[in-house]
């Protein structure tokens, strides 16, 4: 048999390639810079989908609960619209987590272009993988919620099995389209952005846009929760808006959830809604989004082929100035070589690793998301925003606390674990300098820039001296928090292995939340007293200084002198034994 002939005559099957690539891209969607499911992928995905399913089911039940008591007078489209908005929000959040993995990137291009695969197969399989991904989440969102929609609403109750099926199909179809629309809108936006500003600039601004969207979605989500818990009652502008036929007809053209609500109602045969006819925008927008996806990815693919020249020389003058400033900074603050080394390793890793930056950004976004809650909780009116009160004082405290918590978590995650041999090989006796370098890096790269921003912000609201005092108070406290968070830390940042989940958030989150609320209130109360009596500031500084000094002494004598740098984290025993063999006095 002539094997050569067979091999050369073998033509790749495009359908098989499409299948393989779709699965490949689909799997890649679970391995991005925000969430990594590389280990136990199946279990983790099932876990997350189950949480979403239960949560969506609860939301649907809460929205529709009133129809268990009051009959529907034809206004249940409002609840459908609310649920559609909720689905859009969830899907947009998922899209933000996926962000730049949604469009074919340089990695795909580098790996796939040498293979005998048509460009159209790559694009189609990418699109199919996105549809699969959306489908998976759509099933999850609607798995339990569909039951509420087909059983609670009175129209459905009185009908037979076939009609209930009709309700179910209308619900599932609309919701899948809602999810797909929401997801593709984000993909379309990223595609436009990449093509408009170029991939290089996109990579630089991507983090900020992403963080902005995370904040917006967190805020919208909190607003949504508020609507669910308290209803429309004290949001008179919304109530007026819904009842006003003209305004809702106009907004029906521009507000996507209403397009899908109309589609939903049309599928159920209900045409008596004020914005009837707006479902045509669903078809138009979906068409635009799908065509837009292929055009934008096509242009991107072309741009990759051009290869951007990244070796542009830096401005010589700027380079010299930068070198002088860096030299001066090193001489003043980083006199020890090991400290200097860790400082720049931290700085450069944080600068270049999108994964680490996104983790920190999500922590900060969570902090920022809490602030409006805090403002609403304390009923702060615009007039009192300029006043010195506990709520206004708590804003930086919440942000820097979350930032430091984020940093503490993020420094545990290695950038490339296999490369840490260089630290092991060069490890010196005095490990203290490794951690001093880390603390200085956090202070100069994260804490101080944040407080400069706070100072500018509060100088606009308050007088400069109060703003300065407020920032100094926060800065000193931030240093103390950093010291506390790093008290037992004995690793090189971004270079050692770690085991996630040691905080046991799933069990202790309520405890942490309560502690955090108490902490915010106590600290702001202390600050309020200090701002009213600035002469006590000296005592405050002295107390903080003594605490920091004690921590440092503890670290030097109990940790750094006794322990080596921990390159590998030790796994907790699966079962904790009672250790009955060791005598009690030794245990």
């Amino acid at each position: 048999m002539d094997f050569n002939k067979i091999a050369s005559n073998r033509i790749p099957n495009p359908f098989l390639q499409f299948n393989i690539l779709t699965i490949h891209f689909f799997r890649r969607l679970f391995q991005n810079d925000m969430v990594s499911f590389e280990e136990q992928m199946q279990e983790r995905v099932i876990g997350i989908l189950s949480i979403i399913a239960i949560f969506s089911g609860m939301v649907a039940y809460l929205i529709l609960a009133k129809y268990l008591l009051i009959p529907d007078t034809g206004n249940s489209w409002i609840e459908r619209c609310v649920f559609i908005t909720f689905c859009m929000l969830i899907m947009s959040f998922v899209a933000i987590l996926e962000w730049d993995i949604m469009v074919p990137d340089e990695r795909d291009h580098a790996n796939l272009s040498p293979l005998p695969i048509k460009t159209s197969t790559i694009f189609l399989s990418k699109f199919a993988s996105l549809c699969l991904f959306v489908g998976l989440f759509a099933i999850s969102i609607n798995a339990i919620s569909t039951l509420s929609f087909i059983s609670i609403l009175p129209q459905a109750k009185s009908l037979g099995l076939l009609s209930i099926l009709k309700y179910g199909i209308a619900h599932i179809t609309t919701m899948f389209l809602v999810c797909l629309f929401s997801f593709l809108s984000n993909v379309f936006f990223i595609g436009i952005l990449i093509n408009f500003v170029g991939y290089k600039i996109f990579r630089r601004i991507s983090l900020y846009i992403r963080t902005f969207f995370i904040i917006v979605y967190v805020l919208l989500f909190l607003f949504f929760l508020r609507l669910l818990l308290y209803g429309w009652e004290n949001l008179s502008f919304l109530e007026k808006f819904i009842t006003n036929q003209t305004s809702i007809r106009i907004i029906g053209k521009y507000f996507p959830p209403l397009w899908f609500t109309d589609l939903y109602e049309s599928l159920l045969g209900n045409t008596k809604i004020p914005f009837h006819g707006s479902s045509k925008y669903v078809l138009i927008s979906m068409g635009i989004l799908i065509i837009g996806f292929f055009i934008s990815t096509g242009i991107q693919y072309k741009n990759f082929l051009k290869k951007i020249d990244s070796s542009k020389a830096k401005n010589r003058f700027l380079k010299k100035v930068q070198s002088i400033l860096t030299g001066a900074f090193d001489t003043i603050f980083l006199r020890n070589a090991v400290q200097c080394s860790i400082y720049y390793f931290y700085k450069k890793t944080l600068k270049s690793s999108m994964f680490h930056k996104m983790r920190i950004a999500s922590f900060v976004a969570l902090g920022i998301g809490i602030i409006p809650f805090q403002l609403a909780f304390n009923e702060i009116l615009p007039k009192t925003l300029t006043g010195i009160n506990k709520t206004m004082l708590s804003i930086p405290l919440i942000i820097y606390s979350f930032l430091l918590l984020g940093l503490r978590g993020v420094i545990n995650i290695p950038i490339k674990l296999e490369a840490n041999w260089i630290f092991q090989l060069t490890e010196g006796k005095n490990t203290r300098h490794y951690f001093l370098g880390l603390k200085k890096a956090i202070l100069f790269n994260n804490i101080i820039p944040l407080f400069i921003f706070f100072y500018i912000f509060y100088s606009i609201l308050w007088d400069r001296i109060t703003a300065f005092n407020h920032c100094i108070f926060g800065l000193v406290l931030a240093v103390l928090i950093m010291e506390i968070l790093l008290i037992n830390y004995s690793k090189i940042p971004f270079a050692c292995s770690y085991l996630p989940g040691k905080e046991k958030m799933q069990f202790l989150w309520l405890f942490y939340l309560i502690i955090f609320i108490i902490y915010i209130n106590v600290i702001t109360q202390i600050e309020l007293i200090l701002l009213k009596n600035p002469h006590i500031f000296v005592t405050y500084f002295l107390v903080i200084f003594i605490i920091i000094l004690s921590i440092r002494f503890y670290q030097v004598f109990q940790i750094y002198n006794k322990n080596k740098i921990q390159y590998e984290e030790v796994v907790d025993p699966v079962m904790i034994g009672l250790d009955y063999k060791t005598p009690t006095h030794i245990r």
Partner: protein
Amino acid sequence: MLELKNLTKKFQVIPVVNDVSFSVKPGETVGYLGPNGAGKSTTIKMLAGLLNPTEGEILYNGKNIKKIIYEYKQKIGYVPENSEIYPHLSAFDYLMMVGRLRKIPKKKLKTKTIELLRLFNLSIEMDMEIASYSKGMIQKVLISSAIMHNPEILLLDEPLNGLDVTTALVIRDLVKKLSKKGKIIIYSSHILEIVEKICRRVIILHKGSIVADDTVSKLRNLMKLPSLEQIFDQLTVEEDTEAIANEINDIIRL
């Protein structure tokens, strides 16, 4: 002098390095050879202090390296077999970081870094991220980081991986020069031709144990074989290589 006494390393219960003993004097360059999985890299890692031996000890100037680990580490330069390096740093940043960790004085460090990169033809790319480097360029950075502090002991594990002919020749001459200056050099490689030219003495490892330890000329006379490659084949190759090649050829034609 560097001495290995009955060095054994087991992973789980399987011995990867089994009762290995030899010593290397200052100014001596030893070729450390063996087929894949023979235990060469594991021995080198133990010599670098990155792995602890299961049994046996390593002595440097008569002292167990465990007891003088920090001082010992300051004296070694190591080029690993796998080019594991932080890809987000530039060559300049990486060498500066290593130099600082090695406590090279600030003024000397910058000059050394720039000059080494210039000599290895990396001046233009020195500010680019290592992620964009070729395998050979990464190897040049690793070699620079291993020699920049003028170490007493050089542990080279496949140092010519991916290097072009010119740089390989430079490294060959450099190793010879360093050896003349009294450095202890352990050179692990598959490229027997270079080992033959650089090292007077070779140690051949097979399945974790030493099967030969002598000068190349003595081994030639002893085994009545003209080249190091044939000696190596005789000591370590157990399979019929041509038959395996034929089988592979058949499989790829399926």
